[in-house]
């Protein structure tokens, strides 16, 4: 091997350079027809509303324009209960920046998929309880609303175990 073609890094530890990149993009999503009414009811009345499919009678939470199963438009608005049952749950121990506030959420916190009474689909929300031993599929929970509400999903502070 001549001097010209000799790899100058031969025998040395490979250096892997990195290029740092910080990307920040802000979004402002339209809530749209269905979520606007859903959030208004949370904010103004502390109530949870969905829409019923006129075909299969399923009640969708959160409300949406089309029932995927029937491939048809959803219909009337219906109120569902503020109590329901845990379908799946976890306790989160990973620090996480809340994208709506930019602040770190205190850990640990409980998370659950909850099917509210009268709803056919599930809503994803926080749990007050953070002890995994006290949580479980099938346990009943109730929504705790904040006194000051802004028209977002966080107008429900969390769900509290009833059992």
């Amino acid at each position: 091997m001549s001097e010209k073609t000799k790899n100058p890094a031969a025998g040395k530890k490979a250096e892997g350079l990195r290029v740092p990149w910080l990307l920040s993009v802000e979004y402002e999503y339209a809530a749209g027809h269905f979520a606007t009414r859903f959030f208004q009811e949370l904010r103004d009345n502390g109530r949870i509303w969905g829409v019923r499919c006129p075909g299969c009678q399923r009640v969708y939470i959160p409300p949406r324009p089309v029932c995927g199963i029937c491939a048809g438009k959803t219909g009337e608005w219906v109120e569902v209960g503020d109590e329901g049952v845990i379908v799946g749950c976890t306790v989160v121990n990973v620090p996480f920046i809340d994208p709506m506030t930019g602040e770190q959420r205190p850990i640990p916190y409980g998370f659950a998929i909850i099917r509210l009474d009268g709803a056919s689909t599930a809503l994803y929300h926080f749990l007050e309880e953070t002890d995994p031993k006290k949580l479980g599929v099938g346990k009943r929970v109730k929504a705790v609303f904040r006194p000051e509400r802004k028209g977002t999903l966080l107008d429900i502070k969390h769900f509290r175990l009833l059992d």
Partner: protein
Amino acid sequence: MDGEVTLPAPGQVAILGAVQTRYEAGKPHQTYNELVHEVVDQLLTETGVALKEIQSIVSASQDFFDGRTISGMAINEVAGGYLNSESKVAGDGIQALIYGAARILAGAYDLTLVVAHCKESEGQFHQITSTMFDPYVERPLGLDEHIAAALQARRFLGVSGAAEADLAAVSRKNHRHAMKNPLARRSGDFSIEEILASAEIVSPLRDLLAGPITDGACAILLGSPERARASRRPVSWIAGMGSSTDAYWTGRDLAASAALAQAAERAFAAAGIRKPLDDLRVVELSARYAHEELLYLDALGLGNGAAAKARLATGDFDLGGKLPVNPSGGALTGNPTCVAGLARVAEIHLQLTAAAGQHQVKDARTGLAHGASGICGQSQTVVVLRGDAPQRT
């Protein structure tokens, strides 16, 4: 065109219907799935097809503009995707159309819904389009889509001999056309002087030489020949399709588009187009920036030996001229990313079925729809469409 499969033969895939939203600066009352629902619902009403009959869906959206990954899933229910075959193209909607047409040509489906959406207003254009560029040697310098387009525009002006007034003439024509299109985002009878006095964005690009931030959606229903024969409304046919991808933007001459020339050659061969200037009756180009329209016309051979700007000056490309280009107003007057190319196909379909209203081109029997994506139009697509029967206009 060595070793290349040239498909399809005329008449194998039909367009049964095409619907667009109004194009607007923002749509604060609709989520993007409600935007898609609007066009899909209207398309189904117009074609008399039920959502549950559709088993194949190809969507086009850009995750970064939607602000979520797998952005096709957010519109799955409203596009009829539940327990059906849905696939997303993260490029221009015209590529979704080709993908959808291939599904029908393969005999796999007799209907395919193609839908594109974008709400450019909800994110930030500079930050989002800056991520097109490589993070090592380009992004640190602050590039975005406008800046790359401005660099291309200056290169094109220098090489072609076109002047900034020629770019203004493109803008004047398109904004005048848009006055006859009720869906258009921006329209008006602007003088050359007004256009050249509009706010400079990135030299030489000015406000009226670049398409504005826009929200909108477009949906097209493709069908097999059997479906087309059963249609109660006039249909159009895909006569030829071609796509080609060029070198990365720093590795090619930005004043020309070899990829578009090749895409057109493929589409013209399949459609039997020999003299595009004579054989085509209407053209819709995806040109968000005024210089792109002249550049693409040259690449398509529609300058007919002379530079496209000469034909522009004689009024050949005006509505009522020899070969109207962008009678809808085109992307320069406001069509969002991803939607622009599919909207071109929708517009040609409207022309060929005599449904274009005030911007109808008389006796439109054969038309060209063009789509582009990537930095400075790296990827190019041409679709030639034919009408079903002599038009009664």
